[in-house]
């Protein structure tokens, strides 16, 4: 299956050793076949997007008429999008998602990087135990916590606030592990020189270690942001008020409110999908590398 003449590997970071130079293809037929198979699958993979888009561009009457058709009888229209944007809360929900996901990502990065730095670099008592507890906590599935967390947020009177959305979502134990492993690889000499010069730990951390760790910080940020942006269960429990909902939860309420308005349902879904898809188109390389480096650390 794998031929001897691999094209340039997509995930190989820039500047890494080049692969063996391409030789004339030995089995062009197998590669042509693979391209055909993958193309067919890729087109199939895009069908749900395409069908949602076509539906969203129909009038409600066309969307609900049989036999179903890719080209609507009364032409394409932006009616559904306009209606959804006028009457719905989608812009508000998008802002809520943006704000809470950004806050979750920022807090996660700060607290995870600093504890990872301590574990990687500082010899303090109880460090091994701390690391052990953090690693062990990876096994706790978030759904197990929803009942006590709800109770806790209720008794703190935080249900239906941004706090309830943000605070419980900033513990990402696997990411502490990922960061610690990266910090371990940074040469100690860089810091020891600064230590000799009398620089404090905090200064070394912020001016030497963090700038050197940009790739891994970006990877962790991407992973945490996508997770927070799409999280459903906890925000669904923690918020009821329409003006506080995040996009995924808001969409769930739209579905029941609009009922059989198929074009508007699809327009809403596409508007909700748009931000991350656009981000992906721009930062494809970083996102894919980020997933590849953090993915196996666990979710």
């Amino acid at each position, binding site marked *: 299956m794998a031929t001897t003449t691999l*094209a340039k590997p997509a995930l190989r970071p820039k500047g890494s050793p080049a692969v063996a130079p391409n030789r004339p293809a030995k089995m062009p037929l197998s590669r042509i076949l693979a391209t055909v198979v*993958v193309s067919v699958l890729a087109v199939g993979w895009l069908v*749900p997007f395409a069908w949602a888009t076509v539906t969203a561009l129909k009038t409600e009457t066309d969307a609900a008429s049989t036999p179903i058709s890719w080209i609507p009888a009364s032409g394409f229209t932006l009616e559904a999008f306009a209606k959804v944007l006028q009457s719905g809360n989608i812009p508000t929900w998008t802002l809520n998602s943006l704000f809470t996901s950004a806050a979750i990502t920022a807090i996660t990065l700060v607290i995870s990087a600093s*504890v990872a730095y301590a574990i990687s670099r500082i010899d303090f008592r109880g460090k091994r135990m701390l690391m052990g507890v953090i690693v062990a906590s990876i096994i706790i599935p978030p*759904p197990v916590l929803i009942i006590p967390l709800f109770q806790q947020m209720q008794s703190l009177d935080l249900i239906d606030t941004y706090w309830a959305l943000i605070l419980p979502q900033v513990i990402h134990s696997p990411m502490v592990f990922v960061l610690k492993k990266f910090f371990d690889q940074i040469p100690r000499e860089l810091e020891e020189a600064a230590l000799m010069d009398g620089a404090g730990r905090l200064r070394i951390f912020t001016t030497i270690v963090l700038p050197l760790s940009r790739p891994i910080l970006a990877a962790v940020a991407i992973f945490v942001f*996508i997770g927070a942006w799409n999280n459903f269960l906890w925000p669904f429990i923690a918020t009821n008020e329409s003006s506080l909902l995040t996009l*995924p939860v808001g969409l769930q309420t739209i579905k029941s409110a609009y009922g059989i308005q198929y074009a508007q349902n699809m327009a809403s879904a596409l508007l909700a999908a748009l931000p991350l*898809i656009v981000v992906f188109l721009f930062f494809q390389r970083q996102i894919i590398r980020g997933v590849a480096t953090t993915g196996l650390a666990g*979710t």
Partner: protein
Amino acid sequence: MSTATTPASAGKSSRSRRNDIPAPAAKSSRSRRDDIHGWAFSAPFLVFFLAFLVWPMISGAIMSLTGKSLTGANSGFIGLANYTEAFADSDMWRSLGNTLYFTLISTVPLVVIALALAALVNMGLPAQWLWRLSFFSPYLLASTVVSLFFAWMYNPELGLFNDLLAKLGIPPVAWLNDPSVAMWAVVIATVWWTVGFNFLLYLAALQNIPQQHYEAASLDGAGGWRQFFSISLPQLGPTTVMIVILQILASLKVFDQIYQMTEGGPGGATRSIVQYIFEAGFTGYRLGYSAAISYVFFGLILLIALAQVFTTRKRSA
């Protein structure tokens, strides 16, 4: 938090692991400073960790021993009554069974299809970015978006799936309303949604296999299939173990897409254990009972994790 956990006896020089500083006095002050710095850097994480992970685990365990309701009534201890009730609760067992069924029939395609796609794309196809874009982009969608897309395609009269079946001369299927089909319909949506993640992990792993292996094999006359099965597949072993474990743990937590597409129906045929926890607490108002089921679920996850530790130890031994 940090002051509470920083030992007052930080001055004990014997504990210092650093031996690059000669004088004992300097050693002890360095070690004490390291203790303070270490816990200070850990403190922010620890505060959140204790407040939103450790404490809920403890309070959930306590709650599971009470008859607490959502309104706060009946918070007295009732011992293990919730657990004995749970183990005799046929709905709980059914939800657990549904969850294991979903885990089985979703994990297999999510691993096998991901590997097949990665192997195909890694054959040196042109336009690498296009394939990654196609297969990975659904992963960036919220579960609600995926559910809206698929519920629409599963629509009995207006859906694409039945339209396709009709063109092939196959009678229509009640995708989400037929108890024997609904779980498979959920799995199809799930595979479309998340297979791109495993695909990326496999692609990265394939590209980390040294080229020399393939070159040596092709000098020995091994063909493409032969190379895949005797080089790629064995080299992917550790990655596969990790992907399978992570996939099983992720599938066991299934809730979103099932709740959104079928609400656990028809007739409880797709209700997962997480949905049962959710409903016992928020529809049935029984927080105590719901907390007990959460712990039964956690017990299951722990068992699987222990099995994993056991099997990976055996492998490395």
